[in-house]
């Protein structure tokens, strides 16, 4: 990105002041190196978002941002319904409630190293991953409706996981306001055989070791200890979410036109929050969030079964489950008053600080865990929400590393089997149904997650707690 076009506020904050039809500025959180590497399209797309009706504060851009469709990936935008604010299907994205959860195991690294290969094989066989895979669970229409309303709570009621998991999930495992009636027959059909599946692309299941602790006091609250093993699951709402997104992108083209909203980019299609189309999307999207929460809950159950076979004494406890493609109603102080806003986070993680009432009691003294997935084989981070991120980014932080090479470029440079061999030399076992898929997800195709997380930390969006290094990676 051309930094000549930006106003530098401080070391990690850059501003594009409003011009033309922009209603608010764009604020980008990144260090100079990340900004220079960032695509110019990020600035263009964020400026487009800043023109949408009812946007308040700013369009916030996270340090891992890259060119998306309509909204940049790593974009945060909040809208006030009292000022004609809108909700946008493109502002949430195709994989509704795509997210990450991490579980502690209490196991030492040596225990897992001793069975690494067979454990990897068992996880790969048990958790369906990749194109063409099917889950074992088939939902009829009534069960589908119950799942869309209940989320992870539904899953726990059906025997997938434990009641104590629920408070360790955003929204306590069940997104309120879901309206299954707004989810089409086609969206349901796409999901019928996909419950408990990982998907593909950048989705993964990793067995990781806690390699470094940055904040021992918070790490203790989260249950993280150096040298211990954790499991991280990254996936979303599967075919159901994708279908909801596709259908509402189309419906919102018409809704925007009907509401007289001029769109700088068709992908920004949106509808006023207080309109039938806006409410219909919110009901469907929240049902999509529940689908993602149920999906990650079922996969957690499968992971516990596998670990139970290898380590009967191991207790897999959920630290937290975060979503990074959502639109949620939250109260924030903007312009000197508390307002109920609809906060879109597309490739951005909610990062509530200490004392926030939405957090379970265990996290209230310190803030919520913010889980940041790195690229395959390079490690992940757990951060904690800060008090100051409310003012800085409406309590939002980054979500991952972000690509620096396209899939096509990646497959030109790397072969899947070479990537697998190279990672194995580094002590990471990769299991995937597709070697081309592995090449497309090669670690070097992504930005350094270290740099992204360091920038988020310095900007005060969230603070580093622990660094996790993968030992086993199951890719879709």
């Amino acid at each position, binding site marked *: 990105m051309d930094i000549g076009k930006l106003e530098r506020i401080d070391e990690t904050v850059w501003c594009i002041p409003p011009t033309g039809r922009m209603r608010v500025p764009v604020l980008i959180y990144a260090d100079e190196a990340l900004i220079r590497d960032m*695509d110019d399209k990020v600035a263009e797309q964020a400026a487009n978002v800043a023109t949408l009706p009812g946007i308040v504060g700013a369009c916030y851009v996270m340090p891992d941002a*890259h*060119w*998306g*469709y*309509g909204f940049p*990936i790593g974009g945060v935008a909040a809208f006030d319904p009292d000022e004609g604010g809108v909700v946008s299907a*493109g502002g949430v*994205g*195709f*994989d509704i409630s795509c997210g990450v959860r991490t579980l502690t195991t209490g196991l030492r690294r040596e225990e897992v190293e001793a069975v690494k290969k067979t454990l990897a094989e068992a996880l790969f066989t048990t958790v369906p991953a*990749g*194109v*063409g*895979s*099917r889950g074992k669970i088939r939902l009829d229409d009534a069960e589908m409706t119950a799942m869309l309303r209940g989320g992870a709570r539904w899953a726990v009621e059906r025997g997938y996981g434990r009641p104590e998991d629920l408070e360790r999930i955003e929204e306590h495992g069940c997104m309120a306001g879901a309206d299954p009636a707004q989810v089409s027959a*086609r969206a349901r*059909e*796409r999901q*019928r*055989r996909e419950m408990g599946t990982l*998907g*593909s*692309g950048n989705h993964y299941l990793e067995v990781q070791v806690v390699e470094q602790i940055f904040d021992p006091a918070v790490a203790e609250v989260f249950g993280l200890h150096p040298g211990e093993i954790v499991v991280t699951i990254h996936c979303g709402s599967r*075919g159901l979410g*994708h*279908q909801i*997104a*596709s259908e509402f*992108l*189309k419906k919102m*083209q018409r809704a925007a036109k009907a509401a007289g909203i001029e769109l700088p*980019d*068709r*992908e920004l*299609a949106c509808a006023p929050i207080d309109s039938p189309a806006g409410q219909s999307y919110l009901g469907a999207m929240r049902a999509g969030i529940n689908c993602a929460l149920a999906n990650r809950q079922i996969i957690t159950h499968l992971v516990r079964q596998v670990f139970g076979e290898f380590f009967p004494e191991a207790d897999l406890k959920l630290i937290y489950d975060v979503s990074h493609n959502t639109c949620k109603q939250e109260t924030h102080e903007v312009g000197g008053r508390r307002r109920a806003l609809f906060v879109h986070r597309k490739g951005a993680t909610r990062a509530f600080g200490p004392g926030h009432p939405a957090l379970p009691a265990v996290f209230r003294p310190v803030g919520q865990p913010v889980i940041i997935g790195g690229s395959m084989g390079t490690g992940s981070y757990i951060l904690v929400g800060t008090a100051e991120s409310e003012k800085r980014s409406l309590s939002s932080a980054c979500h991952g590393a*972000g*690509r*620096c090479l*396209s*899939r*096509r*470029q990646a497959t030109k440079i790397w072969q899947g089997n070479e990537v697998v061999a190279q990672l194995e030399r580094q002590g990471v076992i990769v299991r995937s*149904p*597709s*070697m*081309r*898929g592995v090449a*497309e997800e090669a670690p070097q195709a992504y930005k350094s997650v270290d740099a992204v997380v360091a920038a988020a930390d310095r900007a005060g969006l969230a603070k580093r707690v622990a660094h996790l290094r993968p030992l086993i990676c199951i890719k*879709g």
Partner: protein
Amino acid sequence: MACAPHWEHFEHMADIGIRGYGRTPAEAFAQAAIALTAVITDPSGVQTEEKVAIELERDDGGDLELLLVDFLDAVIYEMAVRKMLFGRFEVTIDDHRLKAVLWGEPVDRQRHQPAVEVKGATYTELKVARTDDGCWLAQCVLDV
């Protein structure tokens, strides 16, 4: 002018762009659909033994670009629910509807090595137009 039907991919950082070229919009759509399959697997490795027909009522107000997104989304839907891949497409478009026949086979994970699942067609870089050499072009970015 002569136009040989063909397809290609173009760069998009997180996702991937597809382009189909043909003598008519319908032929360009069919080529774009092959480009879609090529995001997942080598289309020449997909056996075209099973046939799936799709039909879309046009409610796009004559906008071929919106129709392209509808068509690609319909193909993605059939791939997802049938767990199939398609290697050949025949498309016809009139004022009222689009009809397509998709030839393919169930996903064989060993043989096809499917790289990535396509989530949906986007409106990003969406374009259906005539090119200078007389071809029709149909392109958009897919979310993967």
